[in-house]
């Protein structure tokens, strides 16, 4: 049964977009928390922790996300852990994000000049005060652009989860395109939705950068 690409289909795509956004959000939060751990392990004065973090980062950044998705979706059941598409998608995207966030944030923290630490110390600030009031605010400002840049990638990469059958925007587009035989309008609509999300993120990034006044 072939039907026209209609408003109902657009509504269906928008509803599926919820899952794209939700997945990106979960990966952002999960990956963010894990990313903090990765960044800390990467910089603490304890070699084995550094090696562990470096190994983790290289493994995750050096393998395709699709492969990681498959490992979780098809691999975990081999160990008797049944995972649905949502769980596999959320887990693998979080882990994927953590490796990138970890590196972005470590770099941002280390790019704040040691002189800022010294200036804080020279005023009698404790180590923690230097970190939280002097260095972190500057590191956050430096990290906004790369962090949001990666978030944009993350949103687009959620589309890979269509391949394990998770019905987000891309999978929904495939379904409707199959039913209507009108791939062009369907995928153009999907592309427009992705664009709106990603463009909004970039705008947010610019706004944040202006608000968080700091060294250029």
């Amino acid at each position, binding site marked *: 049964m072939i039907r026209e690409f209609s408003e109902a289909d657009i509504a269906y795509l928008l509803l599926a977009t919820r899952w794209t956004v939700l997945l990106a959000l979960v990966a952002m939060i999960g990956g963010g928390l894990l990313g903090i751990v990765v960044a800390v392990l990467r910089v603490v004065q304890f070699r084995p922790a550094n090696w562990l973090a470096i190994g983790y980062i290289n493994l995750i950044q050096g393998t395709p996300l699709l492969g990681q998705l498959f490992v979780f979706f098809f691999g975990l059941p081999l160990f008797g852990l049944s995972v649905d598409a949502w769980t596999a998608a959320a887990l693998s995207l979080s882990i994927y994000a953590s490796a990138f966030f970890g590196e972005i944030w470590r770099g941002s923290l280390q790019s704040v000049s040691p*002189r800022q630490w010294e200036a804080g110390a*020279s005023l*009698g600030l404790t180590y923690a005060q230097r970190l939280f009031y002097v260095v972190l*605010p*500057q590191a956050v400002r430096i990290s906004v652009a790369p962090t949001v840049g990666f978030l944009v990638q993350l949103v687009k990469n959620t589309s890979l989860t269509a391949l394990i059958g998770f019905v987000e925007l891309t999978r929904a587009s495939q379904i409707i395109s199959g039913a209507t035989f009108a791939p062009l309008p369907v995928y153009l609509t999907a592309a427009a939705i992705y664009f709106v999300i990603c463009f909004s993120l970039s705008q947010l990034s610019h706004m944040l950068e202006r608000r968080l*006044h700091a060294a250029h």
Partner: protein
Amino acid sequence: MPLIEITDIHKRFGAVEVLKGVSLALEKGEIVAVIGRSGSGKSTLLRCVNGLEKVQSGRIVVDGIHVTAPGADLNLLRQRAGMVFQSYNLFPHLTVERNVTLALKLVRKMEPSAAREVARQVVARVGLADKLLAYPDELSGGQQQRVAIARSLAMQPTLMLFDEITSALDPELVGEVLRVLEGVAGEGMTMMLVTHEMNFAKNVADRVIFMHEGRIHEDGPAREILLEPRTAELRSFLNAVLH
């Protein structure tokens, strides 16, 4: 009792010995200019005084605090010994006012309104009352350096360390910073300043120390040291900077 007492300190970076047995005592209210060639250890000496660098041996006592003793309260020391750097090092994410109030609130535990009042006063004192709400990147180098001095003064230190604070400035901005320094000197602050401004050293400092290869090579009243150098090393250094 001297306010700063340095006894035979040795400082190495790796295998390189940068301070080779420096001893020095500074009385309260004394203004000492430290001069010498690049690499002679001037900055290192200053940084040892407020504990930014650790010495390998020797003793430093500042205002009753044993800097070189294990477990010394360096944060307390640094409240008493303010330091201003060549590169200003203002906090770029904070306004001028908040650059000054940060340590007042966190370290001195002042109420925000009291801290703001102190900020207003010290910033006015360096002639920048109208810049309280500006961010550092909106100020000239000279203005930033004056704010850095104000930020340090706000903590009401008993002594101040200045490390070549005019060296990064365009020549036309040096004067305004030196005038602020003179003002601080005129109020009886104990000061140790590394400088290449020989005229300033001659007119403002009580005493000049010439560092050479990690040692104090000459030490005496400013005019005497600068006008009648005793050693060939100081003569050649002065020739090099004055001509």
